[in-house]
Every structure is written in C-alpha cells, then in structure tokens.
C-alpha cells in the first residue's frame, strides 16, 4: 500500500523533506507509517510524543488504519493566530 506523507514546521526540518510517498508492508496502521518516517532520526523520535496526525485533511489517531493513496500529514502542535 502506498500513502503520501506531508510534513510541516519543525518535523519537516528535522526529517529534511516536505512530501514523500511511503510503501507500507504491514497491516497499514498510521503508527507503522510514523515509525517508518522517524526511524533512525533521534531528533524526530524525541518529538514523537508531541506529534499530531491528519489523514486526508482530518485529525486522526495514530492507531487508525490507512488506505491506498491516503494523504497523511504529520506535524507538531499548531501555533497560528
């Protein structure tokens, strides 16, 4: 299953990319994707407990199941206003 990942703000800088496609081989949970994104990156791993997730533009839990072609956004707490 292939999904599109978009990163924003600090996690984008820490991971060094804004958008990338990932292939998931497991059961397709968001948590599996998150581990694939932050694997081997100590700074990203340290941020994990603060990260927020959205699937196709709606906030999602890290336990949710993904579908082929989903757009997954990963970002730190928001700071607009």
């Amino acid at each position, binding site marked *: 299953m292939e999904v599109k990942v*978009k990163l924003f*703000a*600090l996690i984008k800088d820490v991971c060094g990319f804004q958008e990338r496609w990932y292939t998931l081989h497991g059961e397709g949970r968001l948590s599996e994707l998150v581990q694939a994104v932050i694997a081997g990156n100590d700074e990203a791993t340290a941020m994990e407990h603060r990260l927020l997730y*959205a699937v196709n*533009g709606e906030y999602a839990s890290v336990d949710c199941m993904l579908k082929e072609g989903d757009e997954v*956004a990963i970002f730190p*707490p928001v*700071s*607009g*206003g």
Partner: protein
Amino acid sequence: MEYISLQTEPINVGLEISKCGSEADGAIVTFIGKPRNGSRGMAVKYLEYEAYQPMALSELEKIVTHVKRTWPVNDCIVVHRYGIVTLDEPSILIAVSSPHRAEAFESARYIIETIKKTVPIWKKEYYQDGSMWITEHP
C-alpha cells in the same frame, strides 16, 4: 455572512471590519493578532507562517460553523496571513457581529482560542542570526 481567508497579502483591517455587521446588530467585536517582538528574549526581525492549506481552511470553516450554531451571531470574518509577516502587520483579524455584545465577545474569544489549538498553521520567528519554530500554545 461568513468570510474566511488565508492569504499572503496584508490584511486591510478597515475594509474587512466595514463588511461586518448589519442593522440587526448592536455589537461588532474585533480581534487583531500581530507578531510580538522579544517574547523569548531575542529581537524578532519578522515571522513566517506555514499553513497546511486545505485542512486549515476546513478547520476554520468548522470553527465558524460551530460559532453560528452556538451563538446568535450574524456576520463572522476570519482572515489569517501565511508566508512572511513583518512586526508592524496583523497576522490575524477576527470580526463578529451580533444583536448583543455578550455573544460577540464570547464567540470572538472562542474563535481565536480554537484557532490556536486546532488550525494547522505554524509560526517561525526569524532573528538577526537564526530562526525558531514556535510550538507552544500561548
């Protein structure tokens, strides 16, 4: 009337506020947010706002929909900048009109507080020698 805008252009405060309110309204409450200098002990040169645009717009729409269902509000305007914002420019304008002031104050407060929790927009402060993403809830 509802008007939501995410824009790189400076906010025309007077023009936006002039669109808010009708004869049925007795109150127009506005909130203007702007970059604050030196909040972390460093002189800020300018800010950059990054937005996850489609989701930011849909979250703003949810907030405005909730406001109109919860309070007797007639007009609701939310304009948020993204991209570079200098210290002398507003980063956000909220204007709400209602027959009585209590609902206008309450709903304007709800809008800004909820934006700071749910709308995917992030700010980065730029200093003389570096920059920093701001992630705390103020």
